[in-house]
């Protein structure tokens, strides 16, 4: 019980700290916007520069590096283990967080070795490519709402282009190059195989990734992620907000699965395949490996961010939103919204790590089969259904009802137990020998 209260206290403290942190970020963005406006430059430049520093370098980087620790500790909890706890700070393991510093120190001070026959420009470029393109994805993700701070209208997002989702598709495709180049430039058979696997897998999933979001584009009639998030605050079906998960549950599933394939993590970790080919980063050492390794976690955070912005209501706190909006100072509301966004991101990161530790790796033909035979047709069907529903009823009510029906159907199929009780009786029935039993099928 003591630990339960402690954990809840830590969670509450982290959430409170995040509210304060995001309030500071808002103030910094507003201050910089005012500064640039004073110089006669567009005010947006100032907030964009500050947001690049605060959101991308602080929020994404810190979350991604904490995920490296979280992967160890959370997987341990899932497997009834304790996890990393040998670095003690004043007698406390601090949840394994000091391992972050130890890992960073190790990566930075390790000897960098290079394969002699590498293609050296590409070899140096690949980690940067892998890291930068996933990083840039986050530029269009709205972390907080548009509010007035210090006389300037700022939002916690780096850039707000109207082509938001297209930017995501473009840069998600670019991320493939990091993997492929790393595999190719190493001049190593196993690494090359990993790179090629990565390329084919990610190009396949690019298709369903894009198609899964078409339904959302139809429903919200925009590509801009900030507008999409605002549209998710409107109510549909009484008090229920029109979040993407309600309108597009199938789209959410397809997008999440495809995003998973994009992160190159288990069960889609064929490019790495530690047990057979080591992976595309086989020849990398030191911080170059660290960048490829960290890029994976950055990708987890960024794709969680995209999923939250598109499907889970973005920075809408959802609970008590009306009360918060009327009773709080706009700055405080913005900070609370950004904290809600981060909380959702962390939950999704947790879900991704759970699935990563849950499922074994797919075989290559199974990966391609899942993409082309299951996800792609489902995504196409989803587009047709969404299009028809929006055409018949532009108020999204029909679409919401279809979404509810889909959720209920998924829930029903999941909870319907067809096999578990049969296990006991199944064992009694193989008196006639097993090979014959198998051949009968």
């Amino acid at each position, binding site marked *: *019980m*003591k*630990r*339960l209260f402690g*954990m809840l206290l830590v969670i509450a403290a982290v959430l409170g700290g995040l509210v304060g942190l995001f309030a500071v970020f808002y103030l910094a963005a507003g201050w910089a916007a005012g500064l640039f406006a004073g110089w006669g430059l567009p005010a947006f430049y100032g907030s964009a520069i500050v947001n690049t520093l605060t959101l991308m370098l602080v929020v994404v980087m810190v979350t991604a590096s904490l995920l490296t620790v979280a992967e160890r500790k*959370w997987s*341990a*909890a*899932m*497997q*009834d*283990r*304790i996890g990393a*706890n040998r670095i003690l700070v004043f007698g406390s393991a601090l949840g394994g967080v000091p391992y972050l510093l130890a890992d960073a120190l190790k990566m930075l001070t390790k000897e960098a070795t290079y394969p002699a026959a590498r293609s050296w420009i590409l070899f140096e470029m690949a980690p940067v490519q892998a890291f930068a393109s996933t990083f840039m994805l986050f530029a269009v993700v709205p972390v907080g709402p548009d509010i007035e701070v210090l006389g300037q209208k700022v939002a916690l997002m780096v850039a707000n282009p109207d082509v938001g989702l297209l930017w995501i598709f473009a840069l998600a495709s670019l991320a493939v190059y990091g993997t492929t180049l790393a595999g190719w430039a190493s001049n190593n058979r196993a690494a090359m195989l990993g790179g090629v696997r990565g390329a084919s897998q990610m190009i396949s999933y690019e298709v369903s990734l894009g198609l899964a979001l078409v339904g959302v584009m139809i429903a919200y009639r925009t590509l801009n992620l900030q507008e999409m998030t605002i549209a998710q605050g409107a109510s549909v079906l009484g008090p229920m907000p029109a979040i993407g998960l309600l309108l597009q549950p199938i789209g959410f*599933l397809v997008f999440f699965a495809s995003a998973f394939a994009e992160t190159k993590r288990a069960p889609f970790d064929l490019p790495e395949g530690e047990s057979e080919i080591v992976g595309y980063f086989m020849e990398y050492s030191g911080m170059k490996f660290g960048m490829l390794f960290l890029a994976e976690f950055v990708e987890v955070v960024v794709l969680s961010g995209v999923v939250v912005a598109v499907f889970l209501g973005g920075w809408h706190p959802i609970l008590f939103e009306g009360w918060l909006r009327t009773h709080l100072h706009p700055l405080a509301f913005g900070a609370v919204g950004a904290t809600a966004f981060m909380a959702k991101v962390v939950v999704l990161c947790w*879900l991704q790590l*759970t*699935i990563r*530790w*849950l*499922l074994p790796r797919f075989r290559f033909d199974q990966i391609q089969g*899942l993409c082309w035979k*299951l996800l792609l047709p489902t995504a196409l069907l989803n587009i047709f259904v969404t299009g028809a529903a929006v055409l018949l009823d532009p108020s999204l009510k029909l679409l919401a009802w279809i979404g509810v029906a889909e959720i209920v159907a*998924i829930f029903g*199929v*999941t*909870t*319907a137990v*067809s*096999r578990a009780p049969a*296990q006991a009786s*199944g*064992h009694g029935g*193989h008196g006639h020998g*097993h090979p014959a039993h*198998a051949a009968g*099928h």
Partner: protein
Amino acid sequence: MPYQLDNPPLDAREKLYFPEIFRAIGLVARTFFRNAFFSRDTNPDILERDQRLNRITTLAYPEEKAPYPSAYRGLHRLVPRVDGSPRCVACYMCATACPAQCIYIEAAEVPDDPIEKYPKKFVIDELRCVVCGFCVEACPKDAIRMDTGEHAPPTYTREAQVLDEKQLLRGPPVSYDHDPWLRRDSRLPARDLERMRDLARPFAQDATDEASQTPGFSVRALASEARAAAGAPDAGKLASRKS
């Protein structure tokens, strides 16, 4: 016969793949929250742990140690007398019995005593020791025991594994009523002698008896237990042969 795996074909719901994943996520999530949000029982006896909430069965080793069985042959110790000097009389029995030749003894005479010797140096190389326990069996004075319950500690140098008489002399003191230094005129102060006589107990004839070995461990008790477990016929046969 090897275990036969029942591997029936997938039904329609399982072929969808996703519902089964959702169920599995639920399962893993439950395990995660139990283990992450509730404290772990640190009882070194894992089977006795309270696993209603937290299911972790890890023994976090240096902090939580599983108790060794009572017959465990741990690190040697030189048994002290009540006054703190070693019981050892430097007779070289243990060094002679040692198959690994890891015991080195240098004897010296007790200054004001006509007969008695003591070990000026008593060194055991724990790296050479094969932990056979022969030294304990050989000792006529019950002066060396392996009842510390510790194994040789890890060290950074080989030299640190060579224990001398200062490191070996530790643990609870022991006295027996036939100890010669209690019976004859002794160099010991009268008060110490009195205490030692009070603590003295009869010396066991058998080196593996519970009186001279680790408390709770008895070869005789185990043997009689085994005989009882084997059943009455054996005991009966023995009895009939005797009669």
